[in-house]
């Protein structure tokens, strides 16, 4: 068996919900999960023996440690790469050279470039320290919010309604790729087939799409993906980084998760 740890923040929920489908499609894999409390690198201690331990009590039901020594591969999912900083900048300012949106102040594209460069480099430095440059690790960014996230606070994904979203997300993506190229980790940007439009995931992949008719989706249900996304993303990970093809996939992982249907 090949052992794969999926660690990160709340976004690992999508893979957990797809776990059964993943294990059926990839029967040679054995999955483990670990969520960092508050998704803070500082909330965990990676000891010399290779065990990642939460420094603070984990929420009830969540493991408080994972032995990464036992793992063959590590998927570190849900990394923000300072995208909230991009969001805040374009929420508070117009960008000179891009279509104006009526903000009282503008900043230059050059400033935005340097700002993102600074923030993303700093994030990558923290990443490098966190798992001590472990080459088993592949890092995936937080999935883009899904289409339909109308009630998402503007500051959380300010590019969604920006007419130059492609340019803004393009700059962010390029900067992340540049800084990740300097680390010994693998880097797995959100696959193209899981992107609806620049900086936006497909509505069908949001948790909101998987909620029952009696439930009203809230903002996190558009920023967090469902088991279909979890499976599709993991499938892309397995193909690219593990060299594995899925052996079967007959049902929607979401339906399996929701209704207990086996493949």
């Amino acid at each position, binding site marked *: 068996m090949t052992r794969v740890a999926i660690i990160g*923040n*709340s976004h*690992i*929920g*999508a893979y*957990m*919900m797809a776990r059964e489908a993943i294990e059926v499609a990839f029967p040679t894999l054995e999955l483990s*999960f670990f*969520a960092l409390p*508050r*998704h803070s690198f500082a909330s965990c201690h990676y000891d010399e023996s290779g065990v990642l331990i939460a420094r603070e009590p984990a*929420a*009830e*039901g*969540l493991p408080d440690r994972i032995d990464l020594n036992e793992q063959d591969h590590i998927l570190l999912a849900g990394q923000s790469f300072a995208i*909230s*900083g991009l*969001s*805040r*900048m374009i929420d*508070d300012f117009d960008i*000179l*050279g891009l279509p104006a949106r009526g903000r*009282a*102040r*503008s*900043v*230059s*594209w*050059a*400033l935005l470039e*340097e*700002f993102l460069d*600074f923030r993303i480099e700093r994030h990558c430095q923290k990443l490098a320290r966190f798992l001590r440059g472990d080459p088993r690790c592949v890092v995936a960014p937080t999935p883009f919010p899904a289409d339909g996230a109308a009630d998402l*606070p503007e*500051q*959380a994904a300010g590019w969604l309604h920006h007419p130059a979203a492609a340019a803004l997300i393009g700059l962010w993506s390029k900067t992340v790729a540049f800084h990740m190229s300097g680390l010994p980790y693998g880097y797995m940007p959100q696959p193209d087939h899981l992107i609806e439009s620049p900086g936006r995931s497909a509505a069908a992949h949001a*948790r909101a799409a998987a909620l029952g008719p009696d439930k009203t989706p*809230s*903002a*996190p249900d558009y*920023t*967090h993906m469902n088991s279909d996304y979890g499976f599709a993303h993991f499938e892309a990970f397995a193909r690219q980084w593990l060299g594995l093809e899925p052996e079967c996939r007959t049902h929607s992982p979401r339906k399996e*998760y929701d209704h207990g249907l086996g493949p």
Partner: protein
Amino acid sequence: MRSPYQDLPERAFWRSCVGRDDDAALAQLWAPKAGITRQTALMTIGSCFAQHLHRALVRGGWHVLQGEDMSAHMPTNLCHRFGYNLFSGRYGNVYTARQFRQLIEQALSPDPVPAPIWERQGRFFDALRPTVEPEGLGHPDEVAQSRKEHLGAVRAVLENTECIIVTLGLTESWIDTASGYALPTAPGTVAGDHDPACETFHNFTHGEVLEDLKASRDLLRAAGLPARFILTVSPVPLVATAGGDHVASATAYSKAVLRAVCGELQMSDPDFDYFPAYEIITTTIARGPYLDQFARQPTDDGVQLVLRTFSLALGAGDTAGKGPEDSPAIPPVPVPAPADDDTICEEILLEAFRK
């Protein structure tokens, strides 16, 4: 026999004052015309020494207005690289009294004469503050838009300030022929090209500097703005002179003119006061001079001593702490927390684990 000097205070005598940096001596270096507390809204502007003053005042807990604050978004070094948070506005170095006057004119005017725009390798620069965008902007329209927003921010600062601390740095300047604006630096230094037909060298006289400062005050009064002025002279010498004289003589001329104007206004006009930062840094009066190895930049110790003197003379205690009579510093604007939905989303994760 009576002498007019016999009843004068200690501060009037060189021997009793020189070479002392104790609190009592420093407090005597300046007799402010009007009180300033840590709640007085201050505006800083001027040459590069004004950056030192601005930083020291902010650190010392004084209420320094910030018209184009970027500190909630970016680290200090990046703010400074793009001209933010160096002074009360993003105007870059304002070396001459003429620049100061024209900035006020532009900020208060509904339709100011457009500033010249320089070009360098396809990038465009605001010639009146060419360093605030180190890489320039992509189109002249962007420069104009940025300047328009800047002037709005400067106007807001002028409307809110009670006291403007102006640090005068130079008398030498280049004048853009078309607009008549005094430039902060010669074309061809940061961007643009020097063309003798388009800009001329000018070395301001005592009378011109005096007139510019009075006109600055008159512009504010005409707009109903009550700010008074504290003048200082930058101790930083000229990097270079275009006047044909030796740079040392040119520096002496500039500083002498500026210092004389400050003295005259201090003596004759209630709206203007003079704070002796120049003397503290460049002379032995407070155990100085406080200049770096190249005799250009003031040392950190010197800048701290300047602010200590400022605080002590105002009865506001030392810069590091606050005197017992102090009012509390104006609290900084709270920095909003970055958008982060992880707290909410722990619930989502728990749900996935429970399944």
